[in-house]
């Protein structure tokens, strides 16, 4: 029997009867890691029918607090009260049994399994005797009841990030969660997907449930949350009605002081002029190894001292593009010229030696070795050159010194460089990778969604660094889904669709509507121009 309530027509807002207890109440929560206060004295009330946003700088303790609420960590102090009763969860299984489910920053689905299998994995409601058909039918019914469209037979690995997230959410909701926690859900979504998500969330809370929503995107927070709680340095600084907030007021709460968002537009006086082509891609074709064409005759020119923005809906070949121009993937045909030399068959090491830095789109899976130390990860690009290595050896002390430099430049405070890098907060991992890559990017920096997971201040800093690099004559390839960011920073914008460049426009003359059309597959004026530079 499948039980979740059907999506009946509901009032747009659920108003809890007066005197209703908060669905979740955290009282005086503290969590200490060696050398770090992740949370201290945190109080949080979440009411039924509410979308409650959780804000804070990178490392402020948001993920930790939610990990405590869902039983992944145990608090060092404080108490969790659900529906008015104190509870303690030894594991996420216990939390979900009490109606509290979480979708993490990094998904926890089994890639090789189908949607239906993932939904039923480790679930006490899973029927004892199962066949694929039964699981898929159940999944389809559940999905329909919860108004989340998924293909039950599809393998997770074949799904887009947005679809994977939907599966994660479905997984939580099928277990009758009444409180859904989302840790930076929109960081990996296209704007369209994000809007779909928001609709589903509104639906969900309208039935008397609650959502806790972690995000660094202040506009989103203002758009969908009812109340917002801000953490700073592990402590709660405020809980506000969203209606009374603005982006600036929220930013001030997060940082503790006014932050001035610098305007990146326009080139600074001392900047190197846009120079000669550093890297030229000619008619690149590549497939994903399973026969799907992912780059379909793509041509691009990266020039010294220029930021070339790449616009486009995720999944249109951006990832493969970054892999091809960093030597991680070999193109099936076409040429890559680097300073005039043919790099078509070069590997990642040769690109790096030439001076290509790469902030990858999924830092945890390709940019870091999560279980190794911060030091090991910080030196990933320079371990093979002095002073770390003079050929054969590896100097651990020099490595730690370098790691300290990088962490400092990235403004990440690290209590212990020997601890696994996965212990860093999501944003701090991103900062570390970005700094590491900028150090070696003497000619080209490939930055895929570099602001993902960063807080407002850090994004601003990141943008400034990109501009600095450009001004020093580095060619920057900047991939983003946020048009505003692209328009703010790029000198030119290329739009990708189905593995092809639909057109390249000068930012100065760019017009959002045209770019939007190109993102949907329409070529700029005519083919000849679209292929061009």
């Amino acid at each position: 029997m499948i039980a979740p309530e059907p999506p009946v027509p509901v009032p747009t807002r659920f108003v809890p009867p007066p005197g209703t207890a908060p669905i979740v109440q955290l009282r005086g929560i503290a969590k200490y890691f060696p050398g770090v206060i992740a949370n201290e004295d945190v109080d949080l009330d979440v009411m039924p029918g509410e979308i409650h946003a959780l804000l804070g700088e990178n490392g402020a303790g948001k993920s930790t607090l939610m990990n405590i609420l869902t039983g992944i960590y145990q608090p060092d102090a404080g108490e969790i009260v659900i529906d008015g009763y104190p509870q303690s969860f030894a594991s996420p299984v216990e939390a979900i049994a009490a109606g509290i489910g979480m979708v993490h920053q990094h998904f926890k689905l089994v890639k090789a399994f189908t949607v239906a299998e993932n939904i039923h994995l480790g679930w006490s409601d899973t029927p004892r005797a199962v066949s694929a058909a039964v699981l898929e039918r159940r999944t389809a019914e559940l999905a329909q009841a919860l108004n989340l469209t998924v293909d039950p037979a599809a393998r997770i690995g074949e799904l887009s990030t947005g679809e994977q997230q939907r599966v994660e959410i479905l997984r939580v909701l099928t277990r009758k969660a009444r409180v859904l926690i989302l840790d930076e859900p929109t960081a990996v979504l296209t704007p369209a997907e994000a809007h779909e998500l928001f609709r589903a969330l509104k639906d969900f809370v309208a039935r008397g449930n609650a959502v806790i929503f972690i995000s660094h995107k202040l506009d989103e927070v203002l758009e969908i949350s009812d109340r917002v709680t801000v953490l700073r340095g592990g402590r709660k600084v405020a809980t506000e009605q969203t209606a009374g907030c603005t982006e600036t007021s929220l930013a001030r709460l997060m940082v503790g002081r006014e932050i001035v968002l610098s305007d990146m537009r326009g080139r600074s006086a001392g900047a190197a002029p846009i120079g000669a082509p550093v890297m030229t891609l000619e008619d690149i074709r590549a497939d994903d190894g399973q026969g799907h064409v992912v780059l379909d005759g793509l041509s691009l020119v990266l020039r010294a001292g220029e930021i070339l923005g790449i616009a486009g809906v995720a999944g249109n070949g951006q990832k493969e593009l970054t892999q091809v121009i960093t030597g991680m993937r070999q193109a099936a045909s076409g040429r890559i010229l680097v300073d005039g030399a043919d790099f078509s068959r070069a590997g990642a090491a040769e690109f790096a030696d030439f001076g290509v830095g790469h902030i990858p789109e999924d830092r945890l899976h390709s940019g870091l070795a999560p279980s190794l130390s911060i030091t090991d990860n910080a030196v990933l690009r320079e371990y093979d050159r002095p002073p770390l290595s003079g050929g054969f050896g590896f100097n651990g002390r020099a490595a730690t010194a370098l790691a300290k430099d990088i962490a400092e430049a990235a403004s990440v405070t690290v209590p212990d460089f020997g601890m696994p890098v996965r212990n860093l907060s999501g944003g701090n991992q991103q900062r570390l990778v970005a700094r590491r890559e900028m150090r070696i990017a003497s000619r080209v920096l490939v930055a895929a969604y570099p602001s993902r997971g960063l807080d407002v201040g850090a994004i601003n800093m990141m943008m400034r660094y990109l501009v600095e690099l450009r001004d020093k004559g580095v060619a920057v390839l900047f991939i983003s889904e946020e048009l505003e960011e692209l328009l703010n920073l790029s000198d030119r914008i290329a739009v990708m669709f189905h593995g092809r460049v639909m057109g390249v426009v000068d930012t100065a003359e760019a017009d959002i509507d045209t770019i939007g059309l190109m993102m949907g597959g329409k070529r700029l004026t005519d083919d000849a121009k679209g292929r061009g530079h």
Partner: protein
Amino acid sequence: MAYRIQRIPSAPPSVALAARGLAIVLALVTAGIVLAALGFNPLALGWQVLRTTFGSSYGLEDVGLLVIPLIFTGLAVAVGQKIGAQNIGAEGQFYAGAFAATGVALFVPGPMAVILPLMFVAGAIGGAIWILIPTLARAYADVNELITTLLLNFVATLLVYWVATGPWLDPSGRALATTARLPHEVPEFWGIVHWGLPVAVVVVLLVGALFAFTRWGYEVRIAGSNPQAARYAGMPFRRHLIMVMLLSGAIAGLAGMFEVAGTVHRLQGGISNNFGYLGIMVAVLARASPIGVLPAAALMAIILNSGIVLQTQGITVSTVLAITGLILFYTAIGDELARYRIVRA
């Protein structure tokens, strides 16, 4: 006042060590209760184990001899884990190394100073060859080495049995199951303990240094933790995988070489005494750290030798095996529990 249990990501070394100690004590207490229920006097038995293991040169020498193959096979498994390869085939590589070393000893004439080093090299090459196919299958076809290395164990076991009872059977006539005694033996330096022990320690230190203090070691660490990150950084993942797996096989082969040339002196079926499989346990206890293999192998050797003591006290092999398993089981639990702490709510 309520208390709660809290999991921490990694245990501080002192806590981990204390948990190990506690685990062993608890295992011994449990074993004692079982033995008492079987009608033995656990205290007298415990005293007997301690007295004959540490109080006599017999016991110490036996531990010293037992630890040699355990160091090699434990190191072999730990080395594989460095790059994320699960070498379940140390048993087979042990046989291959013993086989190759025996071949050299029996059929290559020459003085000991030449033949022994040659046997060493042959043992290493034999082990490496035995893991070659699983290595290439993993590197080029992504075939899981867990299964391939395991299957080759059975092949090696039967191959050595066949060669020792067939073509290489002791030509002096009446032996049905072993080769002739090898003309060269690894010399002993302390009672029955031969020079394989210091060599094993040196190999551990060299391998430890290789991973800690070389560029290659760093690259292998990264590749083992996240192959994707290795590719990202332009490290030759496949080449490292092949080298590490061959190194793992070669080290397991050395275990076989020293066992046949230093301890048993003849090749026979069953010569591995399960050292290859015990190496997996040693690597687990060592948490895949090369240096950690030394204390882990020593602990394992003491446990195995204690089993011999218990057998002479009338306790059956199966009971001894159960107690051995108990100690390892508790140790594993202790390792996990060390990552929890009790805090006041």
